[in-house]
């Protein structure tokens, strides 16, 4: 499997992401935002976490206009798989590849800690190795993770099985983390080839470092 990880000025999770996917057996290429093309053998594009362009204006607002994003738009339109983690999720929202928008956390704090997540839909590449209602423990680290979508949009997400993950407590009861609509932590597009989530599965791949709940998530792309 060939994974292409994008790198913008201010991205800071590209090497963690590379390490995680390589550990699972992928060949990983990091591609600079000024490039116009993705490597032709790309199976999965990952937009990693960080603070592209210093989060200026809005998180992800400037990165979405980078050269490489045109290639990502084309890749996604042709059914290519795209995963956005944290700032990557924000970029996908700004780019219109995923519906909704991100607001500042309702606590107004930067939140950096482990948090439980409930698996909502597994009928997709990303979460296919997990079971509905599984509870995972994965780090979150963000300031703008307060996902917003209007009522009509939310209905659509629910009806199409596009809600992937929800913030919850250790028992799996939905729990607010940042004010997100329906406690949403991750979604996918209608065609189920573009995925975005605020938590960092690539930081949860070694029990030695606390937890490996992210492995089964990332492994979904290998199947």
């Amino acid at each position, binding site marked *: 499997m060939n994974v292409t990880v994008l790198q913008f000025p201010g991205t800071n999770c590209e090497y963690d992401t590379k390490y995680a996917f390589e550990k699972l057996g992928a060949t990983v290429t990091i591609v600079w935002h000024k490039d116009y093309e993705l490597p032709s053998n790309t199976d999965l594009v990952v937009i990693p976490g960080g603070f592209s362009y210093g989060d200026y204006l809005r998180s992800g607002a400037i990165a979405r206009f980078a050269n490489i994003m045109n290639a990502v738009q084309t890749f996604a339109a042709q059914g290519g798989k795209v995963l956005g983690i944290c700032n990557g999720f924000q970029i996908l929202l700004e780019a219109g590849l995923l519906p909704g*928008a991100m607001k500042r956390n309702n606590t107004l704090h930067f939140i950096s800690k482990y948090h439980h997540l409930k698996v909502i839909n597994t009928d997709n590449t990303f979460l296919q190795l997990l079971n509905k209602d599984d509870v995972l423990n994965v780090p979150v680290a963000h300031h703008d993770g307060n996902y917003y979508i209007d009522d009509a949009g939310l209905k659509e997400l629910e009806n199409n099985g596009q809600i992937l993950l929800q913030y919850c407590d250790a028992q799996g009861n939905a729990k607010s983390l940042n004010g997100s609509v329906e406690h949403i932590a991750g979604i996918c597009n209608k065609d189920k080839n573009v995925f975005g989530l605020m938590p960092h599965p690539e930081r949860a791949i070694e029990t030695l470092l606390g937890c490996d709940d992210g492995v089964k998530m990332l492994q979904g792309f290998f199947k």
Partner: protein
Amino acid sequence: MKAIVNVALKRGVLDDQGKATHHALDTLGFKEIIKDVRVGKQIVIELTSNNQEDARAEVKKMCEKLLANTVIEDFDIEIVG
């Protein structure tokens, strides 16, 4: 000529920063005179154009493309000078 663009969350989208600021002002003794507080941002653009109408149309495009996220934000444009 310059354009002053104000961007803020739409009515109906909860403005947590506005709410926190409102609360802080309340505790500073302004409670009686405040109805609502909203936090937004202002972007000032110096323009080369001298045609107000053209400038407004171009700035509107800028807002829709980049300056505001119209999923959650509204904007207004003032052309001055």
